[in-house]
């Protein structure tokens, strides 16, 4: 089924105003209101003729600093200065966060994309892990790396980072850490490497090996 036809069924179920359709040559998607996402997903999975049995991918997105004009002028992420200290910025992040759901139906062989957008300070969305079990880890990952909370998630822990990690690295305003558990994390150039050989160390043999 074509995305537009799927969207028409979806919006008939959710009612006017709960979802918007964004036409695109490469990938069209439906922008759904945050409160109705679980309802929409359940409808897409259970309706005969749609049967989206598989959640292919669930991605957290930080839209902060996105260049809407498509000129590639988005705000750059923070890295490390030349001397190895973390970069800082006075800019206050105010962009929205988002989630994208990519669905696939094995029985009908069609795909569909749902997207959410919500303000940064209200980063909580209903879970879909009771609809697709695979969402459990995907949502844990989105919480871990993007800082989006999933309400009703049975196991809302971090998954890739350790429990005591501070911050969510994929946020655009994430500042690189200076150290972790007293291990310096400074991205120093090789010349400043504290473990580099001393100046008076015997010179190595630079000639390439034979053969």
């Amino acid at each position, binding site marked *: 089924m074509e995305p537009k036809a799927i969207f028409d069924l979806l919006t008939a179920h959710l009612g006017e105003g709960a979802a918007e359709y964004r036409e*695109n040559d*490469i*990938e069209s998607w439906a922008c759904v209101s945050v409160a109705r996402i679980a309802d929409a997903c359940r409808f897409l999975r259970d309706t005969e003729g749609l049967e989206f*049995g*598989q*959640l*292919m*991918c669930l*991605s*957290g*997105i*930080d839209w902060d600093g*996105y*260049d809407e*004009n*498509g*000129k*590639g*002028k*988005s705000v*750059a*992420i923070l*890295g490390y200065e030349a001397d190895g200290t973390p970069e800082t910025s006075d800019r206050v992040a105010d962009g929205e966060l988002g989630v*994208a759901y*990519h669905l696939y139906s*094995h029985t009908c*062989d069609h795909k569909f*994309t749902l997207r959410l957008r919500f303000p940064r300070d209200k980063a909580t969305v209903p879970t879909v892990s009771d609809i*697709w*079990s*695979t969402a*459990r*880890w995907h949502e844990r990952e989105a919480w871990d*790396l993007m800082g989006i909370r999933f309400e009703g998630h049975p196991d809302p822990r*971090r*998954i*890739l*980072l*350790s429990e005591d990690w501070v911050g969510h*690295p*994929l946020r655009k305003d*994430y500042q690189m850490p200076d150290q972790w558990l007293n291990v310096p994390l400074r991205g120093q150039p090789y010349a400043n490497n504290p473990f580099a050989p001393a100046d008076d160390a015997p010179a190595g043999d630079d000639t390439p090996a034979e053969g």
Partner: protein
Amino acid sequence: MATNDTRLTGWADQDHVPGLKSELLELNMGPQHPATHGVLRLLLHTDGEIVYKVTPVVGYLHRCAEKIAEGVDYKQWVVYTDRFDYLGPVTNNHAYVTAVEKLTELEVPARAEHLRVVTAELSRIASHLIALATFGLDMGAWTPLLYCFREREVILNLLERIAGGRMLYNYMVPGGVRYDLPQDNWVSDVLEFVTMLENKKLPDYNTLLTYNKIFIERTSDVAIIDRETAIDYGCTGPVLRGSGVQFDCRRNDPYSIYPQLDFEIPVGKGEMGTVGDCWDRYIVRVREIEQSCRIIRQALEQLPEGPVHAIELKKPVRVPAGAAYSRTEAAKGELGHYIISDGGTKPFRNKVRSCSFCNLQVIEKVGVGQMVSDLVAFVGSLDIVLGEIDR
């Protein structure tokens, strides 16, 4: 040590084995354990030999490659894809460049597409050989490991001759591949290897391992993933096909030159037990090696002349603004990239949907009620790579 997990209280009060009082134990399998295929930690709650609860703990290899992607341009990130599934790196390259090309609509020269398919299928064979080898090792078969590694070595040498690296190749770029064929008899060497593998080596493995009575006893009817569970948990690749679902991105969501090629998609049929058991997942990989051999032969026969990349290699790629999810069939399953571009030379967001990440999760459900030794068989049959789970 007895568990103090409050979610599990009440277990000891029940009479599981009549006349025997039992108690749940916490047991750590991994992260340093040869049967977990990398730094995977499985936290088990066991009652004697029976596993009551499995909690995988992952993330030991996490390097946040998705964050790195936002700081480097599209071409520079190809090297990071090599390091996801380091046993089948070229298939990862292929997934990523396909995703970038979906947004840019670059015309890839036909010769490059053919070389991509040949190298990716060689890489898939190498990955499957490791899967067979380590699965056999988990089951106590030592000899197939040596045999499979011997054949993999030939593939590593062939790929080294075309791409320069031994294990990590960085072979593809958006718009083509980096190098044309070497100026020697590479093509005939590949064909010779493929023929040898089909006619001599695979029958050897089948005799040694596939139809070995002990191996069948250890793997048939063990850890059955049924069709619904596999789809619900997002399993893909040989794990999904082992459960009897005929789905392969190369056929169902075609990319590159796969629509022109003639190959079959093997699925598990429950020949030695039930559909979706460990043996089915294993045999799907063996049969996929045969199909990969067929693909390689066809792609090399059709190999056209011409350039191997559409754009200048040193220039960064500028990708028009937009977002697209693209999926390809890597050795372990469906490898997807969700790329959001703002029109610049760096991705605004690059989400990687890795196959092992989704395949491993099913252990939380299917691992329950297994013997500890069967869990080893189960993890082996899933064929996970931690570099890809942790990214």
